[in-house]
């Protein structure tokens, strides 16, 4: 009853924070053979907004990597590439990711909506058609059609509260969630 594409090369890229991404990959048998027998270099190539951004040489045993020091609020994609004098051969390409923004947005055009009206409009759209997950995941900032008809622009002064600006640096108590039986001493 099942068929499985077990033997494929796959490569998944994830944002970890505004300046770090994680990638892991698996080779198919053919790709693994190609990587092993290749006489040139094996590289991870990171693309930012479709342009090559960084290139790292790796060995054939490597299966994951953390990209540090990348830019916040940008789109990235990665490729595994075999390179020699004849040029580049792409073994696999990853999905595209968007790194989280690390600071407030510059744009402040305020659009307001009656949430009840928008909810109703969205439910009509969702009931009418099934939208491919791939389309949604590739375009995280997409909007359902026709919401512009119910959204209106408003002149609202933007309020910034310095007390809330220290994003992501909250110093919480490191409670170990009911799982710290073997360590009676306080951390």
């Amino acid at each position, binding site marked *: *009853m*099942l068929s*499985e594409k077990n033997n494929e090369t796959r490569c*998944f890229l*994830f*944002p*970890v*924070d505004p300046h*770090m991404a994680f990638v*892991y990959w698996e080779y198919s048998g053919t790709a693994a053979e190609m990587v092993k027998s290749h006489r040139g270099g094996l590289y991870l190539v990171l693309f930012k907004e479709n342009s090559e951004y960084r290139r790292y040489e790796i060995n054939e045993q490597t*299966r994951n990597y*953390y990209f540090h020091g990348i830019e916040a609020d940008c789109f990235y994609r990665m490729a595994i590439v075999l390179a020699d004098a004849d040029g580049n051969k792409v073994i696999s390409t990853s999905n595209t*990711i968007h790194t*989280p*923004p690390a600071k*407030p*947005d510059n744009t*402040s*055009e*305020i*659009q307001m*909506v*009656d*949430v009840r009206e*928008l*909810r109703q409009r*969205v*439910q009509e759209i969702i009931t009418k058609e099934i939208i491919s*997950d*791939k389309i*949604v*995941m590739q375009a*995280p900032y997409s*909007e*359902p059609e026709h*919401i512009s008809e119910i*959204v209106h622009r408003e002149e609202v*002064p*933007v*309020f910034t*509260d310095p007390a*809330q*600006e220290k*994003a*992501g640096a*909250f*110093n*919480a*108590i*490191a*409670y*170990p*969630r*009911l*799982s710290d*039986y*073997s*360590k*009676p001493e*306080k951390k």
Partner: protein
Amino acid sequence: MNAKGYLALVLHAHLPFVRHPEHEDHLEERWLFEAITETYIPLLRVYKGLMADGIPFKVTMSVTPSLANMLADNLLQERYRRHLELLIELAEKEMDYTSRTEGEKHFFPLAEMYHNLFLETRSFWDSYQGNILKAFKEVADTGQLEIITCGATHGFLPLYQQHPESIRAQIMTGVEDYERHFGRKPRGIWLPECGYFPGLDRFLAEAGIQFFLVDTHGINNAKPKPARSVYAPLVTPWGVAAFGRDQESSKQVWSSEEGYPGDSVYREFYRDAGFDRPMDYIRKYIHPDGIRLNTGIKYYRISGKGDLKYREPYNRQWALDKAAAHAANFMFNREKQIEWLHGQLGQPPIIVAPYDAELFGHWWFEGPDWINYLFRKIRYDQSVFELTTPYDYLEMHPMQQVAFPAASSWGDKGYYEVWCNGGNDWIYPPIHRCSDRMSNMAEAYESASEKEQRVIRQAMRELLLAESSDWAFIITTATAVEYARQRTLVHIERFNSLYEMLLSGNIDESYLGDIEYKDNIFPQINPLHFKRR
């Protein structure tokens, strides 16, 4: 009252699914037992006390699907009752011991307090026939408690962006399981670890969810910039409202430096009779292998830093007085904050204060008393703000700004590193592979035989259990690491065994029955949520 603003207290009640029928006494099941005794029943008693006194209140609580399944489980209910009987017996023994032992006599009133507390807990437990979900529902039905759902097993959704079927299954299973327990659809969701990424809102809209919560920077770094910071929700283009955590009120309770729970008169969590009493005396009440454990009977207050030996005796009245003072201080600060914000914003702000529920009672023994005092004071001692829930706020203020909240979590550093780092990233390749396999099975589900369908349903349970964010979290925080590692591996292994059975056509019914019994979460699980779209 013409409120200038609102306070929404949100408590996240969650434990991973820990149920081990294969062992008579399993260490990690005590996570649930302690939380029932120290957090869930005390909070319910606070709510019921307010109701009995006719004091209106509003509070939001997630009861995660994994927790709800444990609370509704007969085996765990029986085991909790047995655990509680032992606690009562230990408290009696403590009363006897402290009353006749020189140097311990001043602890007798505390031993008696614990004894009474456990007796009251038993009485409460029995009045709901061992199923306190009924009590949560009873309070929710009054409209004063808004119970929200969560991802089915608290899977950290941003790390499944390339496996949207896992995201849909986590959300839809959470929503359907909520309906099974509470008899209506959830209006809100606590995203596991407040983990958000742009695009997730579409899945929430599909599930009929109306609001969720994010950390402060999820709102402040939204596109476009929010006009009212975290003091008003943002509505995503898919019609779901995002409420952001207020740093000031969070810090007053959570902060390791300034937070109330660290006050020197409050009870010291880490000094427990389970570690203080001689082994012969305490053996029956700790782990059968002689591993010393917290019993919940604690006689000391925080009093200072350094060696636990030098803590001073706990004084219950001092602690209650301090809880009342802290409640007054919290209320006063919200009054000032809301008055100022109202002037700045020109409309009533909402202050969203989310916390782990288990902070209240388990870690901070006086936490439920603090909530009790706070709600009463808000009712009688001020007229600036009202308690609300995110849902009620949206009903009162439906016109809100449209924006895309930013990717974020409430974990350390604010993003995804707690759940994806060099220590725990090994869990994702096999789990993602299982997710792909699960989608293959889901697509074959409707044409499968009854026996094959059982296999597919159980495989989905195993995958969801492997996805729980708790395992990656525990590995990072280096607490019960081996248990978390094993849980991840065991569920992946069970999933793959079931998948291989389906592939080969040789279904081992005895194996299937065994793991259906062990991992009996989500009896009405629907594998079709894993179909690809």
